[in-house]
């Protein structure tokens, strides 16, 4: 959840002007949540810290080019971090395959606890289809890993994901 009292955009603009203390403020504000997102994706503390390190270097370097018409400053910080982690996962997919049985599973989905619209829209999906979306976005699982995890054929998982995305789009606009 974003902290509504913190002005992410003003801090990012200040980073774009070269103000190092603004980056420090963004780090203090958001690094535990960004590290949590990266940790969940790459399943390793040291690796997740490497991802967050690289993300803050990219955030600093890209701050001057940040375009607020394309999305929020906070959202951009998460996109940068997630895609660095996802690139790592996909580039090393052979090494980590089969790992997922050892990884403790996601906590049960509880839409009540999360107020944003995506959670209400997800609640309307069938549980297996909702799990596909969560395992992909939150856990970084590939199609094959989701298929393995849910015990569903690969083709079925791919079709579920496609249809779930269409349904989410309709629900959220």
């Amino acid at each position, binding site marked *: 959840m974003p902290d509504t009292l913190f002005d992410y955009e003003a801090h990012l603009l200040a980073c774009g002007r070269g103000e190092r203390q603004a980056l420090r403020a963004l780090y203090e504000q958001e690094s535990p949540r960004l590290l949590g997102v990266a940790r969940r994706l790459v399943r390793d503390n040291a690796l997740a810290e490497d991802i967050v*390190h*690289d993300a803050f270097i990219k955030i600093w*370097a890209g701050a001057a080019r940040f375009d607020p018409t394309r*999305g929020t400053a906070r959202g951009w910080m998460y*996109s940068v971090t997630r895609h660095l982690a996802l690139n790592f996962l996909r580039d090393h997919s052979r090494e980590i395959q089969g790992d997922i049985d050892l990884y403790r599973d996601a906590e049960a989905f509880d839409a009540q606890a999360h107020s944003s619209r995506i959670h209400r829209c997800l609640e309307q999906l069938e549980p297996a289809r909702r799990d596909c979306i*969560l395992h992909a*976005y939150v856990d970084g699982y590939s199609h094959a890993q989701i298929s393995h995890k849910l015990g569903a054929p690969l083709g079925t998982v791919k079709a579920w994901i496609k249809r779930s995305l269409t349904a989410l789009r309709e629900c959220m606009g």
Partner: protein
Amino acid sequence: MTTRPVDETPEERDELAGEYVLGTLSPERRTEVQQRLRDDSALRTAVDGWERRLLGLTDLAEPVTPSPPLWHRIERSLNASMPRSATAATAPPSWWNRLGLWRGFAGAGLAATLVLGTLLLTQATVKPTYLVVLVAPQDKAPGWVIQASNAREIQLIPLGVAQVPEDKALEFWTKAEGWQGPVSLGLVKPGQTLSVPLDKLPPLQPDQLFELTLENRTGSPIGKPTGPIQFIGRAVKVI
């Protein structure tokens, strides 16, 4: 460069954007999307839409408190990668510009150079014109030697096998007087002898800096050193 397929419908584009943000594309298709995003504004808009829609799901990951050194690592990387002009006014000087540090290294490096240089000169058939001994910053222990028998190619020769964590790599950098920042000469494996042609760079200069830093396995993501220095030294002309 990847171009957009001519027959791609808006629905297909949106589906591709959705799966890109979700993370389920294959490595090949991810790379393809990332290349297209540079100049395909329709795809960029579709991706931005999915980033916005799915962002709320990041709440599901439990926050993790970073270890205290993480911020210092980030700061060090920023100091190392920023151009001199931008850092001059606000930030503390980057380590490239710290004279005291270099004087220290130069002294230690020169001593080691003289010893090793003599050794090499008595054995080598081709006389090197430049020598560099790369020493560890902490204990000044020599780890690598660089020799150049001409100004267009250098050889990086290990004096031992450096310890590198499994998920890291050593990246080789150089910087001469007046350059904006260090230039990567590529990744090097511990214990490996590396020949590096310098055809894209100006000829070697006396006092040119060389260093090996610890980077992610694929090298620094930003083309400048981001990790800690493992070995460092300056070029000395051999007469």
